[in-house]
């Protein structure tokens, strides 16, 4: 029997890898923070407040998208690569709605009409995104539910490619700018005074943040307090037993995708209103960052996704300045956070709710 036992090495180099990486990262962070805060002191407090505010707003958007990822992963154990593109389609729908409303002169007729227009844009965007998400599930994921893990993943990549390029061909590769109503232009809002300097809190930013919080609360209530939410939790825990209990698994999965679509659509319209520029590839990077946020919070874990999104948003806004890294490398920061989280705490900050499914 001794032949089947792997010989124990007295010194296993592999075990040093994680602590070594950890030490390097911490040393790097401490060095950069030292330089920025004590040596250069380039930024005053009002700049930090500005960064923090934009970070919180961005974090709200990331959280909403991350919720979509987490929902789908919790039920199907697959990453919906096309989620970012559903967000892009929601953004485009919002764009067209606002353009149409502007064309028939309804957008700026009065403050009430402006508010109604924005609400309509959101609703239409969320509806279209929902339809797209449901269609996606029906066409590209449902036939592959029983296939080995790699297959639905590749299908998701294919869908993502398809949506991005279809959007490029149909809507054109040029950047489109959202036409906000005049009362909600991207550069007006409330003024805070910090350190005798003005800090602008835009109306679009406040709308985005408030809406994100509302959506998160709504989702939490849906999942915890309603019958559909209970069914979703049951299917996430064990599909076969849920089917035995009389739950229509197909319908629950379709509903999950519908909800994730609604969230993505809302996030898309929010992105358009606040950031202003949309194009066919706009969903790609926020999609990956939102996935990072979902993983940070613990995939499958709804409060985790919310916290992860907010944390990532703030980190992304504050860290480049805090660490003295050029802003161009902002995305590198997000990817590095992903890698570090997956190395050191793959179950996420709040812990993974569902056990790893062996396939």
């Amino acid at each position: 029997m001794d032949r089947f036992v792997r010989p124990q090495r007295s010194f296993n180099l592999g075990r040093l890898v994680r602590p070594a990486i950890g030490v390097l990262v911490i040393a790097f962070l401490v060095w950069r923070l030292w330089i920025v805060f004590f040596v250069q002191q380039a930024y005053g407090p009002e700049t930090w407040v500005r960064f923090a505010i934009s970070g919180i707003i961005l974090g709200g958007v990331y959280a909403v998208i991350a919720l979509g990822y987490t929902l789908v992963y919790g039920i199907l154990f697959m990453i919906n690569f096309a989620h970012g593109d559903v967000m892009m389609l929601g953004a485009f729908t919002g764009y067209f709605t606002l353009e149409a409303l502007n064309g028939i002169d309804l957008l700026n007729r009065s403050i009430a009409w402006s508010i109604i227009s924005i609400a309509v844009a959101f609703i239409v965007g969320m509806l279209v995104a929902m339809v797209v998400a449901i269609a996606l599930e029906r066409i590209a994921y449902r036939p592959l539910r029983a296939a080995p893990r790699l297959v639905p993943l590749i299908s998701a990549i294919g869908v993502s490619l398809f949506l991005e390029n279809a959007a490029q061909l149909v809507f054109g590769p040029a950047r489109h700018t959202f036409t906000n109503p005049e009362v909600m232009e991207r550069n007006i809002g409330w003024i805070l005074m910090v350190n005798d300097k003005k800090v602008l809190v835009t109306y679009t930013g406040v709308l985005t943040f408030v809406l994100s919080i509302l959506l998160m609360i709504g989702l939490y209530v849906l999942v915890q307090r309603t019958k559909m939410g209970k069914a979703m939790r049951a299917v996430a825990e064990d599909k076969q037993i849920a089917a035995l209990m009389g739950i229509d698994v197909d319908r629950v999965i379709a509903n999950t995708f519908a909800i994730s679509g609604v969230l993505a659509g809302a996030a898309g319209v929010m992105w358009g209103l606040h950031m202003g520029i949309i194009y066919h590839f706009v969903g790609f990077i926020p999609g990956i960052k939102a996935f990072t946020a979902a993983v940070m919070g613990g995939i499958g874990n709804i409060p985790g996704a919310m916290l992860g999104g907010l944390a990532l948003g703030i980190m992304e806004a504050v860290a480049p300045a805090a660490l003295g890294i050029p802003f161009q490398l902002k995305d590198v920061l997000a990817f590095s956070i992903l890698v570090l989280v997956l190395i050191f705490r793959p179950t996420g900050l709040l812990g993974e709710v569902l056990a790893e499914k062996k396939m």
Partner: protein
Amino acid sequence: MNIRLILRDGLLAGIINVFIVLLGLTGLVGTMVIGWFELSSPEPGAWTLLLIVALWGGMTAVRHAECKAWGEALIAGLLAGASHGLILAVLTWGVSSLVNSGVDVRRWLVQLTPDAAQLLTLGRPPVAGAIVMFAALAAAGLVGGVWTHVSAHYKMRESLGSRWSETRTRFLAVPAVQNVTQSRYSLYVLYGIGLLLLFAAPLKLGQYWNYTLGTVGIYVILGLGLNIVVGLAGLLDLGYVAFFAIGAYTTALLTAPTPHGIMMDFWPVLPLGIAFAVVSGVVLGIPVLRMRGDYLAIVTLGFGEIIRILSKSDALTDFTGGPRGVRAVAGPSLFGINLNNEFYFMYFIILGIVLVIFITYRLQHSRAGRAWMAMREDEDVAEAMGIHTLKYKLLAFVIGAAFAGLGGVIFASRNKFTGPEDFTLLVSINVLCLVIIGGMGSIPGVVMGALVLKGLPEVLRELDDYRMLVFGTLLVVMMILRPEGLWPSTRRKMEFRAENEQTSERAGEQLELTGS
């Protein structure tokens, strides 16, 4: 006769046709066909496309609704065509009336030029054009439905199939043919002829073809490298372009006068480029390969993007040459002869491909190959059987990185210039597509995939805009219909089909249990 199914098929075909119009394919196909048949206008080609889709809609409607009688088939086809036609009629009317009233729809829907509107309405006013569209598509649906019914009635498909297999068996039974297929030398003769052609070809091809086929060849090398990672070991790597970039940048930075001025020769740089790629494969692999498939995909994607962003960033311009890239990369020279043109590079690439194929083949049929097979099917069981999964995953990753490094070195010195825009995510996706569509884990599949997916777009230049769209569609369609690829290895085919049979059994049990 299930009306709901009929309407659904009609609607689906309608949506496809709307899509075709919005994507501008009507105009494109119309203009392409003009060249082939020497027509005078794009209308015939465009309308043929639309009518074919309507035909198909009618066919599927009748097939799904299982019509028994002629009358039913007629009505089904007509209904499908009519629902389809209605959607397109509304689109035609909407677009042409908007265009006629002077609104420039192109601001939002780029492909709807006034010419496109013209195509849809055939030069008639909006309402008339819409009615014509409706009638034509409804008729096409009818014809499609009737055709399916006829072919099902006279069992055309089965008789064709049996006639084909009959002819085939009779052909193979002829003694002369038997001699060739059974003889053990025939395969060697085939290989010999193939190799001869391969080595003689660069002499005959002009510079243009040597260049394009050279690019295809580099993608073959990349594809075979990714084949080891994705196809043999089952690790979905979306950041493969990073290793390609490292090989290319190593060559560039070590041989070009700027930014460092280390003017090394090509030959010492070749192993150095591969070595750097290998080292980065190890550095990336050790922390990353413990993760699950989905996470691995995103992390490798992130790594690929990190390499691209870093090489493009202004902050690191002193080291990497920045967004403008590195120029004047050296080419190889042997005994004083400058081997720096397309012709010799073609031979390089061919040698590279042969080497890579050889290594892949030997690995596949070795202990490592068997370990990969076991890990693909069930990682925990493989670990329990004593296979050191991390070691073998790392091996696959590193060999893939080495091949990408080789490709990168050849790429950089052939182009004599390299920059961050050569190493976008698109390259990774392209290579992934050709591995998956060609056949995961199968060497001839990957080579064929590279030839088709990289070579065809060179030939069909007009369709280049639609290339990634087609790739995305192909990926989804292939995963649903034929996940093992177009030219699969038999092992993989068995793996994918076995999974389906097993789970359909389980699904059957589940249905019995729930009593539905």
